[in-house]
Structure formats: structure tokens, C-alpha cells
């Protein structure tokens, strides 16, 4: 394979005017990290692998389950039956799709301790997470280290994406200065999600990543893209950097310094973890109970909302904390919190 003559494999892509043989070679020598390998992550990982991006890091701490298969395109029934970690299953799938790609799976929570290392090793980062807190953390690390990243989110038929070029475009915190309060936002696990929404967001994210990797900054998406596939809305919100942005203007990396992140603590003598939001808040327990009623049977009182997911029981309290019983693994508890309470 030379830069002049990409292999037959990529000929249709290299034929595209903005890529060409040189662009294809840049993809081959380029690298990307996909943080979170659920629906969105597995779609972008597949596109990156098929298009010949040379090195791909896949980060996820979760395991494949049957309910993932409707939209998480890299996984199959055997992965779910064996409960393979998503990062490992994704790496195995990538090797089957394109043996030329070096894929590095990382079975881990993304935390202030490891995020800088993860993003520093790649040319571009693609968001496949399911919560705001991790996105703020990725945003902090990418802005600090000058690594571009592409936000993506999908709930129901609604999708969103935004390309963040540190120092040039607004960062994620310019656009979303504060995290929505836990329990106030729908999540895929309370409102559902269409596979088509995910694929549409992944398509935007992959295209933006490829623009960055081939060096075409001119055509990058200039703002926040939002659409609703069901009601046919489509809009692009252009905005400028927030003059007071704590992250990209003031360079205070509050999530990286773990000042505002939620806290998980194991409870003395119990197979249980308490997850607390990083700040004071008052949760509407009644509304929380109604939202979770779509998931399964919910017990509600003036003091708490309780429901069971598989072998875990979640009890949510008025200050936004939750006690997750049935695990002593903090990352399992945090994942369940993000899914059902939401951050």
C-alpha cells in the first residue's frame, strides 16, 4: 500500500474528492479513541474499522447483554450469552472486519485518573458515553491536551452531535455550562432509543472524525447539530465560545480535578454502593418514580424510590443519592446510576 495507490479495499472511499489517496493514507496512520462502546460507540467503531483508521482504542467497562443487541451493532448472541466485556467483544469484531487495524480494548471506567492518558494517545476522540459527567470529563481532558473530540447523543428519535476543536470552537461546557440535575433528564433506559437515531448520530460523528484525520478543518460542522427523525426536525445551532467558560477560557478543569464529579462509596459491611451527586440538589421523587415506572415495578414513598434491575436493587433518595444493592463494584453502581437516574 503506498499513498498513491490505496488497496482495492478502500477504493470507493479514496475516490471521494475530499479524501483521495493521500487522505486514505492519513487514515491509515491516524488514530481514534471511542469512549463508551454501547449503541453509538459500536456503530462508530465499526465505521472507523471499515474505513481503515489505523489504530482504534475502545474504552468501556460494561458487559454485553441481550437487550443491547437491538442497536449495538458490533455484538451478537454469543457475546451476550458469554457476557463478554464490550471493549473485548468490539475488538474481536474489529479484527474479523479489518485485520489491518490495530485495536486496543480497555475494560475500564473513564475516570480523572486515566482519561488524560487515553485521549493523549490519539488524534481524535469520539463520544459513545451515556452520561453528562463523563462527557465533561472527556471535554476537560481534550481541551487541556488540545485533542479534538466529537460529542454524540441519542434518545428516542432525537440525536445530537457537536465537534469540539479545543481553542478554536466552543467546547462542550460553552454549550452546556452545567450538567442537568440527576433525575431530570430522560435516559435511553427510561425513554427508549431507536437504532436509526444511533446510526444517524454515528454517521455524523464518523464523518467529522474523518474530516479531522484527513486534515479538512474547513468543512467541520460549525455548531450543535440536532434532529428528530420521527418528527422530521433538523437544526444546527451555531454559537461562539462562552466568554466565561470555566473549562476552555478559564482553564479550570473541575471534572478532571474531581471537584464536581459524583462520588461512589462502598457501605461498611454491605454488598452495596452509594452513589452521590457531587453537589446539593433536591430531587422530585414522585416524578422520578413515574419516569421509572416504564422500567419495571417501582416502590415509592415520601422518602425514597426503589426498583430492581436484574440482580441489582436501586434505592433513590431525595438528595439525588442512590444506594445500589447487589454489587460491591463502584463502576457497576455508577453505570446503573447513569442509566436510571441520569447525570
Amino acid at each position, binding site marked *: 500500500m503506498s499513498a498513491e495507490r490505496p488497496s482495492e479495499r478502500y477504493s470507493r472511499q479514496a475516490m471521494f474528492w475530499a479524501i483521495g489517496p493521500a487522505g486514505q493514507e492519513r487514515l491509515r496512520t491516524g488514530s481514534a479513541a471511542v469512549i463508551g462502546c454501547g449503541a453509538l460507540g459500536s456503530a462508530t467503531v465499526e465505521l472507523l474499522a471499515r474505513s481503515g483508521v489505523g489504530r482504534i482504542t475502545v474504552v468501556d467497562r460494561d458487559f454485553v447483554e441481550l437487550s443491547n443487541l437491538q442497536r449495538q451493532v458490533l455484538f451478537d448472541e454469543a457475546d451476550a450469552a458469554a457476557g463478554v466485556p464490550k471493549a473485548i467483544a468490539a475488538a474481536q469484531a474489529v479484527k474479523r472486519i479489518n485485520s489491518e487495524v490495530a485495536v486496543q480494548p480497555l475494560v475500564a471506567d473513564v475516570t480523572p485518573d486515566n482519561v488524560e492518558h487515553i485521549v493523549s494517545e490519539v488524534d481524535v476522540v469520539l463520544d459513545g458515553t451515556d452520561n453528562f459527567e463523563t462527557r465533561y470529563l472527556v471535554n476537560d481532558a481534550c481541551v487541556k491536551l488540545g485533542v479534538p473530540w466529537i460529542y454524540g447523543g441519542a434518545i428516542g428519535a432525537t440525536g445530537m452531535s457537536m465537534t469540539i476543536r479545543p481553542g478554536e470552537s466552543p467546547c462542550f461546557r460553552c454549550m452546556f455550562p452545567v450538567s442537568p440535575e440527576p433525575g431530570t433528564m430522560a435516559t435511553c433506559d427510561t425513554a427508549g432509543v431507536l437504532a436509526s437515531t444511533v446510526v444517524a448520530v454515528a454517521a455524523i460523528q464518523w464523518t467529522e472524525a474523518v474530516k479531522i484525520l484527513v486534515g479538512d478543518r474547513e468543512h467541520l460542522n460549525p455548531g450543535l447539530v440536532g434532529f428528530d427523525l420521527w418528527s422530521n426536525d433538523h437544526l444546527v445551532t451555531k454559537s461562539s465560545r462562552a466568554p466565561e467558560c470555566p473549562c476552555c477560557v478559564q482553564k479550570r478543569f473541575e471534572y478532571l480535578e474531581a471537584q464536581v464529579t459524583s462520588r461512589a462509596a462502598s457501605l461498611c459491611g454491605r454488598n452495596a454502593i*452509594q452513589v452521590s451527586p457531587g453537589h446539593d440538589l433536591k430531587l422530585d421523587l414522585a416524578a422520578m418514580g413515574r419516569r421509572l415506572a416504564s422500567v419495571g415495578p417501582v*416502590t415509592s414513598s415520601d422518602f425514597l424510590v426503589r426498583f430492581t434491575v436484574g440482580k441489582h436493587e436501586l434505592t433513590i433518595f431525595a438528595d439525588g443519592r442512590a444506594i445500589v444493592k447487589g454489587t460491591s463494584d463502584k463502576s457497576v453502581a455508577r453505570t446503573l446510576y447513569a442509566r436510571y437516574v441520569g447525570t
Partner: protein
Amino acid sequence: MIYLDNAATSFPKPPAVAEAISTFLATGAGNPGRSGHRLALAAQRAVSETRRLLASCFGVADPARVAFALNATEALNQALWGLLRPGDRVVTTSIEHNAVARPLNALADRGVAVARVPCGPDGALDLDDLARALEAGPTRLVAMTHASNVSGTVLPARDAARLAHDHGALFLLDAAQTAGVLPIDVREMGLDLLAFPGHKGLLGPTGTGGLYVAPHVRLAPMRQGGTGTRSEEERQPEHMPEALESGTVNTVGIAGLGAALRYLMERGVVNVAAHEAALTARLLAGLKEIPGLRIHGTADHRRQVASVSITLEGWEPVDMGAVLDSSFGIAVRPGLHCAPAAHRTLGTYPQGTVRLSPGCFTSDEDVDRTLAALRGLAGAGN
């Protein structure tokens, strides 16, 4: 917030503690005993003064017999590992905190015989049971808590020490829950070793505590190193407190502890004890009126310190603790309290209890509001 977790660490601290720490850091934070300059002397003075205050607090004639430690756990480890050798026998109780239970389990693996005297379901120790355990074989040490950190039950330390001595054993008291809360006098009570935290009843900052070692007891130091004295000697000095204080001590915390002790002495340990006994009586009386609520312990304020363990029908302790905090702003500690053996004794293993521990700054109103909250939870079980 109503803070009922004083058995874990006291809060708030007297304002003088923060002031003393701040002043010390700004003006006196040299290395004590390492040099003759102004800052080294200032630090030396702060450490010596706190040591003298501790000695006077516990009836110790020679302050040098008190060595500083990070906390009661470190002091207990120093006492147990420093004294016991393979072949020794130690008698302890079934209500101990892990700070005593775990080192003894580790020592048992190394050939120390450990006999555990069972306490009653209210946490009380029967002295006849202790006497029988002592008669069962020659014993090097009796190691026990002064009061259960779960139920608050006070053990008969003075009588137990006398029994230990009658059988040729030394006596180690874990005063984690009682230092600063009950009067303790090492001579009058016959204590050979006394381990205490600085950050609970003594109202000092965390990272402080100490170990009193009677003049006739020699401990092998857990650590060897610089002591600032007798640097020419190749071996660890044997004189107290340097024998047990290698490396720079927590001068900042110790300066804070000194201010806490001055506050405590001014207010009077006896008065603090009376205040906490009144709070405990008020709390227990109110708890007894709540349907479905069980008190795990003596339920008698004259037989315990201000640490009350409860369970409530229909509530898991862990959820009850979270509701008290999230809906009522009351800070308690649910669970096993680092004392699984104590919970087995009380019959509350493995689910544990909710522990309410008022302190010297808790008011009657705090207790009443807590009782009102618990009344609200009773019957709202889930």
C-alpha cells in the same frame, strides 16, 4: 445538619482547635527536638504541652509515658504487636472493634493464643466469665474496650484490670469511645496500657491519638528511625516517648489537640459526661416510645456512653441512614461499624444497625428532632 456520628469522629470541634492549628502553621511549624532554632523550639513546646495535658487528663504522673500515635488503631497495634510473642496468651471480649480483633487474629496466626469472653446480648461483660477465662491458663494480657462502639455499653474496666492483675496479666484498655467522655485515671483504674484517639471525645483533629505505657511495661517499637535524640546510638533508644515515636510526629494536629484539651478541661470531662448522659437518657426514652423500633444495647443511660444502636421494623439500616440524611439532614452511621464480632454478639449481624451518637455539642432539640424523624419513618417502612 444534625450530626449524630460523634462515635466516628467528633464534630464540630471547639473553634480554638482550628485557630491553634492555623496559628501553629503560620508561626511555629518547625521540627520538634531536631534543632535549637526558634521554630524547632516552638514545635517542641506545642508537642510537650499537649503531652502534659494528656498526662494530666488521664492521671499519668510522667508525661513521657504517653507516646503520640495517628489514632487509637495505631496505638492498639503498637501495644499488641509490641507486647505479645508466640506462646503468649491474651484474653479479650466478643464485643471488640476490628482495631483490637484484627491484630489479635493476625497474632493468633503467629502462635499467640487468643481467648474471647462472650458478652451478653446487651454488650455487657460478666466479670465471672472473665475470671473463668483467666483461670483457664497463664495470661500475658487482657485487652478490651472501655465501651462498645456499636451499643455504647460500658465494660467494667477497673474490676477487669484488678482481675487481670490478680492473675498476673497486664491490662490494655481501648478508650476509643470513652477518652474525654468518661473520667479515666490510669493509676486509680490500674491501667498498664491505654490507647486513645485524639479526634473523638478529646475533640482534636484526625491524625492524632496516643498510647500510655506504664513504667513497668516495655514494648518493642513497631517502627525504628530518627527520634531527634541520642542520634549517635545505632539502636532505637529505649526511653519513652522516643522509643515509640520515630519520625516527625503530627505537630500540626498535636497543636490542635492541645487546644481541644484546654477546652475540655475548662468545660470539665465530668460536665461533658453529664451532658452526654442526659442526651442519651432523653434519646433512649424517646426511642422506647416508637413502635417497631429496637434498641440494641443496655437501653440504660447509666450503663452506656452516648452511642445508641437501633433497628426499625421494615427498614434496612443502610436505607434508614440514607433517608435520615437525605430527607431530614441527620448524619448517622448505618452498617457494621467496623465491628462484626460486636454485631454477632448483639444479634445484629450481618444487616447491622443504625448508630446514633450525640456528642458534647448536641442539643436537646437535636435529639427531639431526630426522634420526630424516626417517628415519621416508623410505619412508613418499605
